[in-house]
């Protein structure tokens, strides 16, 4: 387990291809995983969001692709998993909101939960879905109330999570007024 109590990612020994997607700068999680993956027979594709420092590790033997735009990154990951077909496993290392968004895209492609592993890193960030204007914004795990950047309403973050959207639902703190207004 890592310091926050999350189990470390373990490469699935039955996988035919490992696809790692990360927005995390730190060495531990991804490097550790790559070292373990070398013991499996399957090739590894590594996708990184951001242009941070080089990872330590044997990057010549991996396909590493970097993107600074999350939508383009997700598009590239979708292409890779579709090409791999059944037997692929996806490993997400990074901020929770990033992982949630990528995970939702993977499920939309047909991957099941058993084919996706997550290792959250960093401060807990969440995706929040405003039920009034439908905008998805980012919040941190400590915030119970936010102001929606889409419609400016004051929202309360609910416990209800949508896997399809990869986001928690956020509802106006004054629901009656919000409904009258819309």
């Amino acid at each position, binding site marked *: 387990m890592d310091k926050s109590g999350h189990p470390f990612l373990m490469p699935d020994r*039955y996988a035919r291809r490992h696809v790692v997607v990360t927005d995390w700068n730190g060495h531990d999680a991804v490097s550790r995983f790559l070292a373990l993956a070398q013991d499996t027979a*399957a090739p590894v594709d590594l996708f990184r969001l951001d242009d941070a420092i080089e990872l330590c590790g044997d990057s010549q033997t991996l396909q590493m692709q970097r993107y600074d735009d999350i939508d383009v990154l997700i598009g590239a990951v979708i292409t890779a998993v579709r090409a791999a*077909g*059944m037997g*692929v*496993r996806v490993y997400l290392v990074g901020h929770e909101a990033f992982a949630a968004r990528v995970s939702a895209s993977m499920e939309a492609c*047909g991957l*099941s939960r058993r084919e996706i592993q997550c290792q959250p890193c960093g401060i807990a960030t969440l995706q929040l879905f405003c039920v009034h204007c439908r905008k998805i914004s980012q919040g941190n795990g400590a915030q119970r109330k936010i102001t929606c950047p889409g419609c400016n309403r004051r929202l309360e973050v609910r416990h209800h999570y949508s896997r399809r959207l990869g986001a928690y639902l956020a509802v106006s703190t004054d629901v009656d007024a919000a409904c009258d207004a819309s």
Partner: protein
Amino acid sequence: MQANMLRVRICAIEQLTPDIKAFCMRAIDEKALAGFSAGSHVLVSMQHGERVMRNAYSLASSPLQLENYRIAVRIQPQSRGGSVFMHEKVRVGDSLEISPPSNLFPLDRTAMKHVLIAAGVGITPFMSYLPEIKAMGVGHELHYGYRSPRHAAFIDELRCHWGGGLHAYRGDLAQRIDPEKILDGQPLGTHVYVCGPRTLIEETIAVARGLGWPEGHVHWERFASPAPGAAFQAYCARSQREINVAAEVTLLEALEAAGIDVPNLCRGGVCGQCQTELVAGEADHRDSFLTDVDKHGKIMPCVSRARGARLVLNL
């Protein structure tokens, strides 16, 4: 008659192959039959003198129409007689009692593609699948192995509805279903469903694992009908009743005949519904449900019997 059993009348019987007959049935009061999802089965009660046998048969008709149900029965002379009864005693116009449908072999609603593998009479549950698969609008293919064209039940109907999606394997031409060839290269979100002998199911499961398919993507159904054995006694500790279990009767049937109702669903030792606490006596476990640990204090009465003369059950 058990609560909520349905009474049906046989409206047509068709000899599909030398050993498989199809039975069409309608509700006896001409109302619509109970709705069902693809992959469901019904338990057919067969009264033979004083014995009541109940066998599970897959519904081989479309779930989109509820005017009649269709089942297909393969005759098995070495069994306890249920299939023999259906083939030799049941006539058009006869009435039978069936359970409402239950489903232990449904389609996965999140699948992007369904791959079906059937051998022999294992084709029956897949006859109900295609209308639902078409409604989902996802990719599909059917691989069907049979001994020879004479033994290919439903083949004309399948060719008509599946077209190029049907892959036939003739045993008489030494064509063999090869799970490796079928599963390799399938796209994301594919689920495979296999219905046939144990060897085919085990091979498919092993091949899928080797290709990296996660477990939830492999579904299987095996038609296991309980085999006869030696007669024995069963003592029900709570109701303080001694039950004789004759050689050709299952423990479950003997309990039911004595008025002791045990929940049940598949009557083939796979689903776990009839699990009963075994207090004393050595069981002859013939199920595919209990773990080795469980086998020390539990028994599945639908298929299992006694190793000695007597069992004591917590019933």
